């Protein structure tokens, strides 16, 4: 009876040591990951490509943000915070204007459906 308890205790100890090691490993990976991310952020911000985009479009980039904030329903955030978001991710964010232009196609499809539905020949016959 006592040996079984001892064995269980040994197993528990072993599993807790394993868990501790796993947690330590995860924390270690996270720390290394964070450190690398911080280190990499600085050079990426100063890459020639990014720099040239910012130089080329000094006015367009903020103008785009201003346009977005002008749209009533899209975002209620004030322009300063939007500026910060835009400077964080300059190239990866898709242009909202493109999706806005694409959304117009949906409206046109709706009109198209109404034209088809408005045809007495297709509406069931009297």
């Amino acid at each position, binding site marked *: 009876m006592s040996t079984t308890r001892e064995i269980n205790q040994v197993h528990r100890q072993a599993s807790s040591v394993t868990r501790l090691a796993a947690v330590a490993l995860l924390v270690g990976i996270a720390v290394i990951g964070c450190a690398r991310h911080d280190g990499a952020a600085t050079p990426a911000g100063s890459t020639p490509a990014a720099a040239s985009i910012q130089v080329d479009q000094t006015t367009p980039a903020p103008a785009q943000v201003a*346009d977005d904030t002008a749209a009533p329903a899209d975002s209620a955030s004030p322009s300063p915070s939007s500026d910060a978001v835009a400077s964080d991710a300059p190239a990866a964010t898709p242009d909202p204007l493109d999706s806005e232009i694409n*959304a117009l196609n949906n409206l046109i499809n709706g009109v198209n459906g*109404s034209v088809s539905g408005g045809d007495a020949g297709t509406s069931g016959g009297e």
Partner: protein
Amino acid sequence: MKSRLTALIAGLGIAGSLLVVSTGAVTAVTSPAGPAGKGVCATEATAARTAPVTVAALRAFGDCEINRRFATLTDLSSKITNSKVMTSGHASTLQGEISSTRSGLTSLKATIDSETGIPALKLDIVKIAADYRVYLLVVPQVNLVNGADGTVAAGAKFGDVNTKLAARIAAAKAASKDTTAAQKDLDAMNAAVTKAVGLATPLPAALLPLTPAQYNGGTAGPILNNARAALVQARDQLKAAVADAAACRAALNAL
């Protein structure tokens, strides 16, 4: 072996789901009522025409045709309720028309169900189509007004796009870029939108007052046809406007 079994099960699962989807599609196509239900009352129609004509056969045909219209009116009402583009005024007018059509048909159904003479029943059945014109007038009215309002709503959205594109052109111009092509595309977009909105705007005012009596008198048909033609043109203008907007955007991107 195990992977083959898994693949087989997965294959059967996909085949099964396809079967379910295709069955659903068939069910949807053979919907018993609504605009697509033209042949819904074919059996009753045949029975009503077969000699000797009976009161029961005529009544069944009349009831079937009225029920088919009820289903269509319900669909139209939902369409109006769910429309994101129809103005509340137009929606209210059309819902009122649907409501009065429904109540008229309900009353006519009661008449048909209590009628005992064959000649009177035949006259009542003619009224189902002639007095209400659900398919030749009400259905096109709802759709064309919705399309016209959709075009006007699209015009407003194009206004937003215009503001943004114009701002970008101004910014590019300030940076000494050649914005001639982009400006040309933007102008073309705005011209097309103006045409589309101009074509669509007067349509509801022409369509909403139309009555079954006007349809029977031959005056509503041409108005419906002209409205449909105008809406087709408006839609084509909107398509051109989208292409112009995309071209303007591309021209700005190329700077």
